[in-house]
Protein backbone atom coordinates (compact mmCIF):
# COMPACT_ATOMS: atom_id res chain seq x y z
CA UNK A 1 0.00 0.00 0.00
CA UNK A 2 1.55 3.34 -1.00
CA UNK A 3 2.15 5.88 1.72
CA UNK A 4 0.21 9.12 2.08
CA UNK A 5 2.01 12.09 0.60
CA UNK A 6 1.55 15.73 -0.37
CA UNK A 7 2.49 15.38 -4.04
CA UNK A 8 -0.95 16.26 -5.38
CA UNK A 9 -1.47 19.15 -2.99
CA UNK A 10 2.00 20.55 -3.74
CA UNK A 11 1.47 20.24 -7.50
CA UNK A 12 -1.78 22.11 -7.18
CA UNK A 13 -0.34 24.75 -4.87
CA UNK A 14 2.76 25.56 -6.89
CA UNK A 15 4.14 28.64 -5.15
CA UNK A 16 0.90 29.28 -3.32
CA UNK A 17 1.97 28.39 0.22
CA UNK A 18 -1.18 29.91 1.67
CA UNK A 19 -3.37 27.49 -0.28
CA UNK A 20 -1.29 24.53 0.87
CA UNK A 21 -1.48 25.59 4.52
CA UNK A 22 -5.20 26.27 4.34
CA UNK A 23 -5.99 22.94 2.67
CA UNK A 24 -3.94 21.00 5.22
CA UNK A 25 -5.72 22.82 8.01
CA UNK A 26 -9.11 21.90 6.58
CA UNK A 27 -8.03 18.27 6.07
CA UNK A 28 -6.93 18.18 9.72
CA UNK A 29 -10.40 19.34 10.71
CA UNK A 30 -12.47 17.24 8.30
CA UNK A 31 -10.63 13.91 8.35
CA UNK A 32 -11.13 12.98 12.05
CA UNK A 33 -14.85 13.76 11.75
CA UNK A 34 -15.22 11.69 8.59
CA UNK A 35 -13.24 8.82 10.09
CA UNK A 36 -15.39 8.88 13.22
CA UNK A 37 -18.58 8.97 11.13
CA UNK A 38 -17.30 5.96 9.16
CA UNK A 39 -16.54 3.95 12.29
CA UNK A 40 -19.91 4.81 13.84
CA UNK A 41 -21.76 3.66 10.71
CA UNK A 42 -19.64 0.54 10.50
CA UNK A 43 -20.33 -0.36 14.12
CA UNK A 44 -24.06 0.10 13.61
CA UNK A 45 -23.86 -2.33 10.63
CA UNK A 46 -25.60 0.15 8.36
CA UNK A 47 -23.88 -0.88 5.15
CA UNK A 48 -25.34 1.76 2.87
CA UNK A 49 -24.51 4.58 5.24
CA UNK A 50 -21.03 3.11 5.70
CA UNK A 51 -20.61 3.06 1.91
CA UNK A 52 -21.48 6.78 1.86
CA UNK A 53 -18.82 7.46 4.49
CA UNK A 54 -16.22 5.47 2.54
CA UNK A 55 -17.16 7.50 -0.52
CA UNK A 56 -16.59 10.73 1.37
CA UNK A 57 -13.21 9.51 2.62
CA UNK A 58 -12.15 8.63 -0.92
CA UNK A 59 -11.70 12.33 -1.59
CA UNK A 60 -9.12 12.64 1.21
CA UNK A 61 -7.42 9.39 0.17
CA UNK A 62 -6.98 10.72 -3.35
CA UNK A 63 -5.79 14.13 -2.14
CA UNK A 64 -3.08 12.36 -0.16
CA UNK A 65 -1.92 10.47 -3.24
CA UNK A 66 -2.82 6.98 -1.97
CA UNK A 67 -3.63 5.33 -5.27
CA UNK A 68 -3.79 1.78 -3.92
CA UNK A 69 -5.82 3.00 -0.94
CA UNK A 70 -8.19 4.69 -3.34
CA UNK A 71 -8.69 1.48 -5.33
CA UNK A 72 -9.30 -0.41 -2.11
CA UNK A 73 -11.85 2.18 -0.98
CA UNK A 74 -13.60 1.94 -4.33
CA UNK A 75 -13.90 -1.85 -4.08
CA UNK A 76 -14.92 -1.62 -0.43
CA UNK A 77 -17.65 0.93 -1.22
CA UNK A 78 -19.12 -1.44 -3.83
CA UNK A 79 -18.80 -4.38 -1.44
CA UNK A 80 -20.73 -2.47 1.23
CA UNK A 81 -23.48 -1.66 -1.24
CA UNK A 82 -23.79 -5.42 -1.78
CA UNK A 83 -24.14 -5.91 1.99
CA UNK A 84 -20.67 -7.22 2.83
CA UNK A 85 -17.72 -5.67 4.68
CA UNK A 86 -14.80 -8.04 4.13
CA UNK A 87 -12.40 -5.19 3.35
CA UNK A 88 -13.04 -3.31 6.58
CA UNK A 89 -9.74 -4.30 8.19
CA UNK A 90 -7.68 -3.31 5.18
CA UNK A 91 -9.57 -0.01 4.94
CA UNK A 92 -9.07 0.64 8.65
CA UNK A 93 -5.31 0.26 8.06
CA UNK A 94 -5.46 2.92 5.33
CA UNK A 95 -7.28 5.22 7.74
CA UNK A 96 -4.62 4.62 10.41
CA UNK A 97 -1.84 5.48 7.96
CA UNK A 98 -3.67 8.68 7.10
CA UNK A 99 -4.24 9.51 10.76
CA UNK A 100 -0.51 9.29 11.53
CA UNK A 101 0.42 11.25 8.43
CA UNK A 102 -2.11 14.03 9.00
CA UNK A 103 -1.02 14.36 12.63
CA UNK A 104 2.56 14.78 11.46
CA UNK A 105 1.73 17.71 9.17
Amino acid sequence: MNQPNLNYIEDLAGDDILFKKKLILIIKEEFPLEKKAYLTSYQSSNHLETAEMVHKLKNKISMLGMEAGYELAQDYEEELKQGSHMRHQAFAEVLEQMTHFIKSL
Partner: protein
Amino acid sequence: MNCIIVDDQESARLVVRQLCDGIEDLDIIEEFSSAIEAIKFLNQQTVDVIFLDIHMPGFTGFDFVQTINNAAKIVLITSDKSKAIEAYEYEAISDYLVKPISQERFNKSIQKLKNTLRRSPSIPHDILSGQLPGNDLYINIDRRLTKLKFDDILFIKAKGDYIDVKTHKEMYVVHSTLKKIKDKLPDNIFLQTHRSYIINFTKIIDIEDNSVLIEKNVIPISRSNRPELIRRLNLL
Protein backbone atom coordinates in the same frame (compact mmCIF):
# COMPACT_ATOMS: atom_id res chain seq x y z
CA MET B 1 -17.87 33.19 -17.00
CA ASN B 2 -19.58 33.40 -13.64
CA CYS B 3 -19.33 30.18 -11.66
CA ILE B 4 -20.50 28.65 -8.41
CA ILE B 5 -19.14 25.62 -6.55
CA VAL B 6 -21.49 23.16 -4.85
CA ASP B 7 -19.83 20.55 -2.64
CA ASP B 8 -20.48 19.60 0.97
CA GLN B 9 -16.74 19.20 1.72
CA GLU B 10 -14.82 22.41 2.34
CA SER B 11 -11.55 20.80 1.26
CA ALA B 12 -13.08 19.84 -2.10
CA ARG B 13 -14.43 23.37 -2.63
CA LEU B 14 -11.01 24.84 -1.88
CA VAL B 15 -9.38 22.53 -4.43
CA VAL B 16 -11.84 23.62 -7.14
CA ARG B 17 -11.25 27.24 -6.19
CA GLN B 18 -7.50 26.68 -6.60
CA LEU B 19 -8.00 24.95 -9.95
CA CYS B 20 -10.02 27.98 -11.13
CA ASP B 21 -7.46 30.43 -9.83
CA GLY B 22 -5.64 32.19 -12.62
CA ILE B 23 -7.95 31.01 -15.39
CA GLU B 24 -8.92 34.02 -17.42
CA ASP B 25 -12.64 34.93 -17.55
CA LEU B 26 -13.58 32.51 -14.77
CA ASP B 27 -15.05 34.19 -11.70
CA ILE B 28 -16.29 32.21 -8.73
CA ILE B 29 -19.11 34.31 -7.41
CA GLU B 30 -20.31 31.97 -4.65
CA GLU B 31 -19.79 28.54 -3.11
CA PHE B 32 -22.27 26.32 -1.30
CA SER B 33 -22.01 23.34 1.03
CA SER B 34 -25.70 22.60 0.55
CA ALA B 35 -27.52 21.84 -2.69
CA ILE B 36 -30.71 23.47 -1.40
CA GLU B 37 -28.90 26.73 -0.67
CA ALA B 38 -27.45 26.66 -4.18
CA ILE B 39 -30.91 26.12 -5.68
CA LYS B 40 -32.27 29.11 -3.75
CA PHE B 41 -29.40 31.19 -5.11
CA LEU B 42 -30.00 29.98 -8.66
CA ASN B 43 -33.67 30.90 -8.39
CA GLN B 44 -32.50 34.50 -8.03
CA GLN B 45 -29.43 34.65 -10.21
CA THR B 46 -28.11 33.28 -13.48
CA VAL B 47 -24.63 31.78 -13.68
CA ASP B 48 -22.68 30.32 -16.58
CA VAL B 49 -21.06 27.34 -14.89
CA ILE B 50 -21.77 25.16 -11.86
CA PHE B 51 -19.05 22.92 -10.44
CA LEU B 52 -21.09 20.26 -8.75
CA ASP B 53 -20.34 17.26 -6.53
CA ILE B 54 -22.56 14.25 -7.29
CA HIS B 55 -22.69 12.91 -3.73
CA MET B 56 -24.23 15.31 -1.26
CA PRO B 57 -26.33 14.58 1.81
CA GLY B 58 -29.98 14.10 0.94
CA PHE B 59 -29.65 15.32 -2.62
CA THR B 60 -27.65 13.83 -5.46
CA GLY B 61 -26.05 15.90 -8.19
CA PHE B 62 -28.53 14.39 -10.64
CA ASP B 63 -31.46 15.54 -8.47
CA PHE B 64 -29.85 18.96 -8.57
CA VAL B 65 -29.51 18.96 -12.36
CA GLN B 66 -33.20 18.07 -12.74
CA THR B 67 -34.24 20.71 -10.23
CA ILE B 68 -32.54 23.86 -11.37
CA ASN B 69 -34.25 26.22 -13.76
CA ASN B 70 -31.08 27.75 -15.08
CA ALA B 71 -29.25 27.65 -18.35
CA ALA B 72 -25.90 27.07 -16.66
CA LYS B 73 -23.50 24.43 -17.88
CA ILE B 74 -22.58 21.90 -15.24
CA VAL B 75 -19.23 20.28 -14.56
CA LEU B 76 -19.66 17.26 -12.31
CA ILE B 77 -16.86 16.64 -9.87
CA THR B 78 -16.85 13.29 -8.15
CA SER B 79 -14.93 10.39 -6.69
CA ASP B 80 -17.32 8.04 -8.44
CA LYS B 81 -16.31 6.81 -11.89
CA SER B 82 -19.45 4.75 -12.34
CA LYS B 83 -21.91 7.57 -13.04
CA ALA B 84 -20.23 8.93 -16.18
CA ILE B 85 -22.63 7.32 -18.65
CA GLU B 86 -25.67 8.58 -16.74
CA ALA B 87 -24.10 12.04 -16.58
CA TYR B 88 -23.88 12.46 -20.32
CA GLU B 89 -27.61 11.84 -20.67
CA TYR B 90 -28.13 15.37 -19.34
CA GLU B 91 -27.63 18.12 -21.88
CA ALA B 92 -26.64 20.62 -19.20
CA ILE B 93 -23.70 18.49 -18.06
CA SER B 94 -20.61 19.63 -19.89
CA ASP B 95 -17.98 17.43 -18.28
CA TYR B 96 -17.38 14.75 -15.66
CA LEU B 97 -14.21 15.10 -13.62
CA VAL B 98 -12.99 12.35 -11.30
CA LYS B 99 -11.04 13.40 -8.19
CA PRO B 100 -8.17 14.02 -7.80
CA ILE B 101 -8.34 16.48 -10.70
CA SER B 102 -5.11 17.66 -12.27
CA GLN B 103 -4.76 21.27 -13.41
CA GLU B 104 -4.23 20.03 -16.96
CA ARG B 105 -7.49 18.05 -16.99
CA PHE B 106 -9.35 20.96 -15.43
CA ASN B 107 -8.01 23.40 -18.02
CA LYS B 108 -9.22 21.11 -20.81
CA SER B 109 -12.65 21.06 -19.26
CA ILE B 110 -12.77 24.85 -19.11
CA GLN B 111 -11.64 25.14 -22.71
CA LYS B 112 -14.42 22.76 -23.74
CA LEU B 113 -16.91 24.88 -21.78
CA LYS B 114 -15.76 28.08 -23.43
CA ASN B 115 -16.15 26.51 -26.86
CA THR B 116 -19.65 25.27 -26.01
CA LEU B 117 -20.77 28.63 -24.65
CA ARG B 118 -19.40 30.43 -27.68
CA ARG B 119 -21.41 28.15 -29.98
CA SER B 120 -24.66 28.44 -28.01
CA PRO B 121 -25.25 31.61 -26.02
CA SER B 122 -27.38 30.79 -23.01
CA ILE B 123 -31.05 31.59 -23.04
CA PRO B 124 -32.74 31.46 -19.63
CA HIS B 125 -35.64 29.03 -19.44
CA ASP B 126 -39.07 30.21 -18.48
CA ILE B 127 -41.08 28.15 -16.03
CA LEU B 128 -44.20 28.91 -17.96
CA SER B 129 -44.45 27.51 -21.44
CA GLY B 130 -45.98 30.70 -22.72
CA GLN B 131 -49.21 28.92 -23.61
CA LEU B 132 -52.17 30.36 -21.81
CA PRO B 133 -54.69 27.58 -21.16
CA GLY B 134 -58.39 28.05 -20.58
CA ASN B 135 -59.60 28.25 -17.03
CA ASP B 136 -61.73 25.16 -16.81
CA LEU B 137 -62.16 21.50 -17.61
CA TYR B 138 -65.29 19.45 -18.40
CA ILE B 139 -65.60 16.04 -16.82
CA ASN B 140 -68.10 13.36 -17.69
CA ILE B 141 -70.21 12.39 -14.66
CA ASP B 142 -73.22 10.12 -15.26
CA ARG B 143 -73.47 11.24 -18.90
CA ARG B 144 -73.42 14.90 -17.91
CA LEU B 145 -70.55 17.20 -18.61
CA THR B 146 -69.67 19.04 -15.44
CA LYS B 147 -67.50 22.11 -15.59
CA LEU B 148 -64.68 22.44 -13.09
CA LYS B 149 -62.53 25.52 -12.76
CA PHE B 150 -58.85 24.61 -12.62
CA ASP B 151 -58.50 26.74 -9.54
CA ASP B 152 -61.16 24.69 -7.71
CA ILE B 153 -59.29 21.39 -8.19
CA LEU B 154 -57.13 20.44 -5.22
CA PHE B 155 -55.67 17.19 -6.51
CA ILE B 156 -56.36 14.16 -8.68
CA LYS B 157 -55.78 10.60 -7.61
CA ALA B 158 -55.52 7.56 -9.90
CA LYS B 159 -57.68 4.60 -8.91
CA GLY B 160 -57.50 1.77 -11.43
CA ASP B 161 -59.55 2.74 -14.50
CA TYR B 162 -60.88 5.78 -12.64
CA ILE B 163 -59.58 8.99 -11.20
CA ASP B 164 -60.78 10.91 -8.17
CA VAL B 165 -60.92 14.63 -8.80
CA LYS B 166 -60.98 16.42 -5.46
CA THR B 167 -62.26 19.96 -5.14
CA HIS B 168 -62.87 21.97 -2.00
CA LYS B 169 -66.49 20.77 -1.77
CA GLU B 170 -66.72 17.55 -3.80
CA MET B 171 -64.94 14.38 -4.82
CA TYR B 172 -65.75 13.43 -8.43
CA VAL B 173 -65.08 9.91 -9.67
CA VAL B 174 -64.33 9.98 -13.39
CA HIS B 175 -63.69 7.16 -15.84
CA SER B 176 -60.29 8.29 -17.12
CA THR B 177 -56.58 7.96 -16.48
CA LEU B 178 -54.10 10.23 -14.79
CA LYS B 179 -52.15 10.57 -18.03
CA LYS B 180 -55.21 11.76 -19.97
CA ILE B 181 -56.18 14.40 -17.45
CA LYS B 182 -52.58 15.51 -17.04
CA ASP B 183 -52.50 16.46 -20.72
CA LYS B 184 -55.54 18.69 -20.17
CA LEU B 185 -54.16 20.54 -17.13
CA PRO B 186 -51.95 23.64 -17.26
CA ASP B 187 -48.35 22.84 -16.26
CA ASN B 188 -47.95 26.06 -14.35
CA ILE B 189 -50.64 25.11 -11.82
CA PHE B 190 -50.55 21.33 -11.73
CA LEU B 191 -47.72 19.00 -10.91
CA GLN B 192 -47.45 15.23 -10.71
CA THR B 193 -45.93 14.39 -7.33
CA HIS B 194 -46.40 10.64 -7.45
CA ARG B 195 -47.39 8.04 -10.04
CA SER B 196 -50.93 8.14 -8.58
CA TYR B 197 -51.25 11.85 -7.81
CA ILE B 198 -51.39 15.20 -9.56
CA ILE B 199 -51.72 18.23 -7.30
CA ASN B 200 -52.76 21.82 -7.75
CA PHE B 201 -49.46 23.39 -6.84
CA THR B 202 -51.08 26.63 -5.66
CA LYS B 203 -53.08 24.81 -2.97
CA ILE B 204 -50.13 23.46 -1.00
CA ILE B 205 -50.21 24.40 2.66
CA ASP B 206 -47.19 22.55 3.91
CA ILE B 207 -44.40 20.32 2.59
CA GLU B 208 -42.54 17.59 4.38
CA ASP B 209 -39.84 15.29 3.04
CA ASN B 210 -42.16 12.79 1.37
CA SER B 211 -45.55 14.50 1.35
CA VAL B 212 -47.47 17.72 0.83
CA LEU B 213 -50.51 18.92 2.72
CA ILE B 214 -53.47 20.26 0.72
CA GLU B 215 -56.38 21.24 2.97
CA LYS B 216 -56.55 18.15 5.20
CA ASN B 217 -55.18 15.76 2.61
CA VAL B 218 -51.67 14.36 2.80
CA ILE B 219 -50.36 13.66 -0.72
CA PRO B 220 -47.22 11.58 -1.24
CA ILE B 221 -44.21 12.86 -3.15
CA SER B 222 -42.10 10.26 -4.90
CA ARG B 223 -38.34 10.57 -4.97
CA SER B 224 -38.27 11.10 -8.73
CA ASN B 225 -40.86 13.90 -8.64
CA ARG B 226 -39.36 15.73 -5.66
CA PRO B 227 -36.72 17.71 -7.62
CA GLU B 228 -39.39 19.29 -9.84
CA LEU B 229 -41.44 20.23 -6.79
CA ILE B 230 -38.44 21.85 -5.14
CA ARG B 231 -37.58 23.66 -8.35
CA ARG B 232 -40.99 25.30 -8.37
CA LEU B 233 -40.87 26.47 -4.76
CA ASN B 234 -40.30 30.10 -4.11
CA LEU B 235 -37.73 29.23 -1.43
CA LEU B 236 -36.61 31.90 0.98
